[in-house]
């Protein structure tokens, strides 16, 4: 008997997180790739923090920040009538922060690879900065977007500690695949755990294989 709720929840969470991070990460990565500001290393370090912090530490701080007693959590509660902690919205906020480097770092690298020359060429052809960004920088870094989106999606599917801290383990609401597997193992329901774990393994492999295949096909055109 397969329980589809955790699967659907994981897919929804990863999709929403990836879309949010495309919106947030693109301008941030662009700024990091272009700036000569002395704050650049500070922002880079902050962006990379989720890579090194244990998920429980990150989750702990997020739990405190998102709780209805804290300003952010309180604001959300009055705005929507729902708490951020132990809710899907809270999971999205936590995942966006947790997966931030997986979006920003490949994008920043891709933008830096575009280099100064095509940007200056576009400016010399009367293209304003936003025009140049949309018509030159974005298409020239399409591989970076593919890699960043897949890494973000996969990393969000795979998260455990932060989700558990912020969202708990509420079936149908915050119980994603990784937590469902944990619960099945705890309850010695190994066959259920096998189905979810095996499914996730196959899904991850197929996704990555598709990306690397597509990446190879894209190379001669975009590289």
């Amino acid at each position, binding site marked *: 008997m397969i329980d589809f709720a955790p699967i659907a929840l994981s897919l929804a969470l990863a999709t929403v997180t990836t879309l949010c991070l495309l919106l947030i990460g693109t301008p941030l990565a662009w700024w990091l790739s272009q700036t000569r500001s002395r704050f650049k290393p500070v922002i880079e370090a902050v962006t990379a923090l989720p890579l090194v912090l244990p998920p429980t530490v990150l989750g702990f701080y997020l739990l405190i920040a998102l709780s209805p007693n804290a300003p952010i959590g309180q604001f959300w509660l009055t705005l929507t009538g729902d708490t951020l902690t132990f809710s899907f919205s809270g999971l999205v906020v936590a995942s966006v922060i947790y997966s931030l480097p997986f979006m920003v770092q490949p994008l920043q690298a891709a933008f830096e690879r575009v280099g100064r*020359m*095509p940007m*200056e*060429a*576009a*400016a*010399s*052809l*009367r*293209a*304003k*900065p936003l*025009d140049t960004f949309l*018509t*030159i920088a974005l*298409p*020239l870094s*399409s591989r970076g977007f593919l890699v960043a989106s897949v890494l973000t999606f996969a990393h969000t599917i795979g998260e455990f500690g932060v989700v558990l801290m912020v969202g708990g383990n509420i079936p149908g609401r915050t119980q994603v695949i990784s937590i469902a597997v944990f619960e099945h193992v705890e309850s010695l329901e190994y066959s259920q755990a096998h189905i979810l774990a095996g499914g996730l393994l196959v899904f991850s492999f197929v996704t990555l294989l598709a990306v690397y295949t597509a990446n190879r096909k894209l190379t001669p*055109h*975009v590289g």
Partner: protein
Amino acid sequence: MDLDLRFARGGFELDLRAEIIGAGVTAIMGPNGAGKSTLLRLIAGFETPQSGHIRVGDTTWFDGANGQHSKPWQRPFGMVFQGDALFAHLDVAGNLAFADRRAKRLAGTLTLSGVIEALELGPLLKQSPATLSGGERQRVALGRALLTRPDWLLLDEPLTALDRDRRGDILPYLREALRAFDIPALLVSHSLDDVAELADHVLMLSNGRKQSHGPVDTILARYDVETADGRRDPSSLIKARVTRHDAAHQLTHMEIDGHRLDMPLMDDVGIGAWLRLRIRARDVALALERPEGTSIRNILPVTIADIQTDEDGPFGHAVLHLGNTRIRARLTRASIHDLGLKPDQNVFALIRSVSFDR
């Protein structure tokens, strides 16, 4: 173009005042690190001067006094970059259209089809930049720059990246386009031959400062420009008219001041066209009487205008007049002494080779 620029970065300083004539081609020359490319980048607005001004016609592109600084995309210039600046994700047609779309509403006679025809880009339109040769790439880049309907063209060593054989892919097009579309241009170049062929004026830079500025023949004649290996290699620039192509002997006949000069066939240049030729001083010898039975074909009757000798070297230099044309010759001091050469003397110049190499 009225330039008054002060710019410093990382130990390099540029301090330049120059009034660049708004017609024809002005070549910017000078040794590596003289600030040639930096000057173009300042004019384009990719770098900002610390002070000074850039005025073009009635418009001000930069004025340090009141903080006015128009952005690169607001300045009406077209640029051909030193490296490969074509957009890799667009084909040739896409690269041209990028410029054309954003400048279409500007007045002028220049059209997309006109540029494609003039630069013979038709067969390349569907190709990706990656599949083009270096010369073809620069041709597309030139077409793209022209399609911005620029008031000025900034050409940053458009020929340097190409090996000698490939220069023919772009040089004639560049020469024709500059003439046909009649847009004033600043051309950064290392090559005396390119400058001799393309430029009307020369701005010579050294260490970020103006060394000299004037018509190409006077500047190039006055300066013993150093060759790439550091030797001084004086030469003369002369204007000559094409009179005939002799296919049988593979020669092109030219005329200078009523006298004939033969050079290797260049049948892509029309009869009656004026060309600038460069003659190295070391390729010119003198004879007191018109020599008979010599293999040298180019013998011109000249008058010695000036003659100077190095006190401690083996050589001396003579300036020869052929009508209004000045030709420089490098001779040994011993020959000058033995032949008794002196100013106002009528002699014959034997020219071993005329360069117009492409």
